[in-house]
């Protein structure tokens, strides 16, 4: 417990839980804002409910997975090129 208290307030589990709650509330509010705010969608898909939210989430998950897969093939230890230094 003592170790917990000496931690910076920002990294205590309680703060992190609060941050997650706050973050979730903001996310929910932003999606709900779509019911009141109507832009001028340029493309059909853009007009779907919460487009920017689900599109951002989905494409980011996809990018992380693609990076992970590419990494399996192309990752090397960071000493890979060290033998060209005498």
């Amino acid at each position, binding site marked *: 417990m003592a170790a917990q208290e000496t931690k910076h307030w920002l990294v205590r589990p309680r703060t992190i839980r609060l941050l997650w709650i706050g*973050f979730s509330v903001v996310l929910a509010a932003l999606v709900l804002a779509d019911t009141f705010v*109507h832009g001028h969608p340029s493309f059909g898909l853009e007009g779907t409910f919460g487009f920017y939210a689900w599109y951002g989430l989905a494409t980011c*998950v996809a990018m992380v997975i693609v*990076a992970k897969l*590419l*990494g399996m093939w192309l990752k090397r*230890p960071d000493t*890979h090129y060290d033998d060209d230094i005498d």
Partner: protein
Amino acid sequence: MTTTSISLITPGVWLVLGALLLPAVPRRFRAVMLIGLPVMTLWLVWTLPNGASPVLQVLDYELVPVNSDALGRLFGIIFALMAVGGGIFALRQKSTLELVAATIYAGGAVCVALAGDLITLFVFWEIMAIASTTVLISSKEQRAVRAGMRYFMVHIFGGSLLLAGIVVHLVNTGSLAIEGLDAGTLGGGLILAGVLLNAAAPPLSAWLADAYPEASYSGMVTLSAFTTKAAVYVLIRAFPGTEILIFVGLFMIFYGIIYALLENDMRRILAYSIVNQVGFMVTGAGIGTEMALNGAAAHAFTHIIYKALLLMSAGSVLYQTGKRKCTDLGGLFQSMPITMICGVIGALSISSFPWTSGFVSKSMISQAAADEHLMMTWFLLMAASAGVFLHAGIKFPWFVFFQKDSGLRPPDPPWHMRAAMILFASLCITLGVWPEPLYALLPNPVEYVPYTVPHVVNMLQLLLFSGLAFFLMLPLMKRSLTITLDVDWFYRKLGPWAADRAVEFVTAAYRRVEAEGRLRLEGILALLSRYAGPHSVAARTPESSFMVLFVVALLCLLLFLPILVW
């Protein structure tokens, strides 16, 4: 074109010449030069009227050292402004060579932005290549010197393409004008290839992440600004609306994101993200409408500021801890609050968060794509905007300043480094909430309104859900002591390997030929020695009586020969 009040001496030259005096200036007056010279240049560019300088006749060519218009001034201003910030940040840099080279480099960039013909442009382009290599290798660390040599070779190649293109273009058209080049002609195509190489476009994008992160803590701040953005400037001026640039740009965008996601070195993350951001500008140049070109130019302007800010933040961490790897860092927010806050402002700006500078510039490019009904481009740009937040906007600050506690408690860096960061962070916010002064500098009239309720809500959704993806996927993004192979593998591993094999092959072939030749030679020598060697008939010493007999016989023959013939 008027030739009224514009001098032949292009403003950037003052930076180049001033830099050469720097080593002679006592160290305590150096700050005056390092900040004063760029401030003076900034003022000279800012107050430059539209128009061209008098023509300079060199051999058969008519050179125009200065041709000032909104686009050139915009880039000249941001290059000079960057030199001011970079100078403040680097005040404590011990390497005089780096400071001299960095100042010449900035001066060269200002000259490129204002150059009125292709030859002037090329000359300053190459000055930039030499100066930037010098910035890199001035740290004298072996890794940096090696990387500097690779960097130099790639850029010499790019410079050759550019020069070849200029020569072909000049021979075919007789024109040295930078405007309206056609990528479909041989000359135009070569020029485009040379310029794209400097923009870190594929296939040789790897030079950037290979070289820049090996520079000193202040060197990389300087390097991040000029070469790629000078290339963007030429693309906007010479190749607007060249369709292939859209594809090249989109490739760069996703290449930058994917490689940055895999990277562990904080400055290599930021290097890949330069390629990513330049990709947005290249795409904008490719779309080529007034809005898109405005967007590309504005994005270059804001990008130089927030990228320098991010690298100042990373440079401060490197300066204070000597560490670059995310696996060694973390928890620094506790002892480096100013560096962290400035880094976060840079990270939000690069992510185009509302009320930061990236928001008012990048959205013009995606809006241009929508206006032109480029659906795929638009959807990819949106995905990329989310991806920027992922790979740079959160990843950089998270792994450097937060995540696990590394136990490191370095203080914020010296005052001038903090001052440079605060200056650029303020610019990011100011341009974000008050974009009109930037819009007024753009090459085309701006009707774009960035702050509408739907736009802000949409972007916040996109970015915050991208943030959600980051934290949900955090286990997949655990840092490891790895790098990711890139095209530089071909010339760092495959090339040397192939050269080694070639040398081995040639050596073996030579040995074979030599051995066979030796055998044949020995045969010939044996033959010779049999008939003409020391023990052959020819080499024997005959007895003198035999010789007398032989001579008498010969004389008799001579005596009777005429009779016989008769």
